[in-house]
């Protein structure tokens, strides 16, 4: 039999932590539900006129064309007239829409995707793993 009168602070902290975890799970589940229903959207501005990104005014050119298998892509001119707004909407939870769109933007603007080492130069501690995990989860729309 658990005696809650003993160490009340400890039990209080545990109860609060448990409630926090439950609330977190509920929030994530609701978010996933919203994502599944509406899809995840991500937008970028590419510093090219719309005509360069859509060959005949509506047909997407690579690399944006390569994304259409996983996402619906729309391209519109920016309000200020410099570059184009590209919006990608996907219903595939496993598709990294943010990363794919950022890579496409880099290829169009600079000709390549920039590579950067994630590991520290000397050694890779737990922090490196956490950064990679956080990047991946947030890039794919949350956990």
């Amino acid at each position: 039999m658990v005696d809650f009168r003993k160490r009340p602070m400890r039990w209080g902290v545990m109860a609060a932590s448990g409630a926090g975890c439950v609330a977190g799970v509920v929030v994530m589940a609701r978010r996933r539900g919203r994502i599944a229903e509406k899809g995840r959207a991500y937008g970028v501005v590419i510093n090219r006129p719309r005509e360069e990104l859509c060959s005949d005014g509506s047909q997407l050119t690579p690399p944006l064309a390569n994304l259409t298998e996983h996402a619906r892509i729309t391209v519109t001119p920016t309000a200020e007239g410099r570059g184009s707004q590209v919006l990608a909407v996907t219903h595939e939870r496993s598709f990294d829409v943010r990363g794919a769109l950022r890579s496409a933007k880099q290829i169009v603007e600079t000709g390549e995707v920039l590579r950067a080492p994630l590991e520290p130069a000397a050694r890779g501690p737990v922090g490196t793993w956490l950064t990679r995990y956080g990047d991946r989860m947030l890039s794919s729309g949350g956990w």
Partner: protein
Amino acid sequence: MKALCWSGTNRVTTQEVSEPKILNGQDVLLRVTASSVCGSDLHLLDGYVPTMHRGDIIGHEFVGEVVDVGSEVRRHQVGDRVVVASPIGCGRCTFCAEGMWSLCDNSNPHPVPEEIVYGHAGSALFGYSHAFGGYPGSHAEYIRVPYADYGAFTVPETLTDEQAVFVSDAVPTGWMAADMAEIQHGDVVAVWGAGGVGQMAAVAARLLGAGEVIIIDRLGDRLDVAQRHTGARPINATEVDVVDTLRTWTGGRGPRVCIEAVGMEASGHGVEGVYDRVKQTLRLESDRGSSLRQAIRACRKGGTVSIVGVFGGFLDKFPIGAVMNKALTLRSGQQHGQRYIPMLLDRISRGEFDPAYLATHKMNLADGQRGYQMFKHKVDGCLRTVFYPHGTPR
């Protein structure tokens, strides 16, 4: 190769690490000949930048010699001596195209932390945590420079490494502080912080037409150096009330331009100083803003406060009422070095000013911990420690 790595709060160590390689066609590989510490490194050293990992190479202010070039590099070749802007800019996104290089859309491969905290991610920076790209820094024998056609600039033969190395960061940061304030002929300009950036801001203000430049610090020896090299009139913040003194010197109006070159670890006085330190220690605020508050209070009605001291997160008791009711303009940003570097190299070549005096201490990488501690505690008049990974100052 040998490199100076962040090894936890208040600790850097010289370690053996693998040499960098060309990873993209637009990269060059540099043999680093000189690499300076910077005031913003102290925020890493003091543990205020959360995405640092043990083993990360630090340093972002450097000159070197090109030893290898990627297949797409057009403006550099092996043997070129170059100075590199500390923000990494692709040169072709909308922000780079408009000259706002430190806001580059493409150079930071890990934008998520910044997007969460700031709303959007800026450019990557060399050697400045994984939130800013995770690129290895310059306190090393070799460094990879992405987008080299846009970020690396050939150093004129007539300039020494000590003259060129600060053109990487301190000089353009100071210049941008003055440039953002749109200094008009005869303006009174006050600069908070007599470190490398503050002194270069004072130089820039003078060259851009200021009538009087005033520099504020707590260290008498730094103020002496600043007065001697920049012609600025010093205020020692430990001896007088800064706002009152500025008011007295300007006929009660205050300076039209106030440049904040101190940043998130300002040393406040009295109750305000204690308050900031307690809140920062308890992680209730991330930045100590006493010099920024002072600059806002001191600034003339309708004036401009130009912020180039590095702030990272949140500060408390921000005097928004003074900003609003005095109709102040706030300008800020990490430096857009690529916009200024060619002009600055030209001005130094013509003898308009010479930043080499900032290099008060010269060391090799093995003395990294000592060099940073001297810089942090301002020992022996240390303005900047410059490391020479290959030993021989040019």
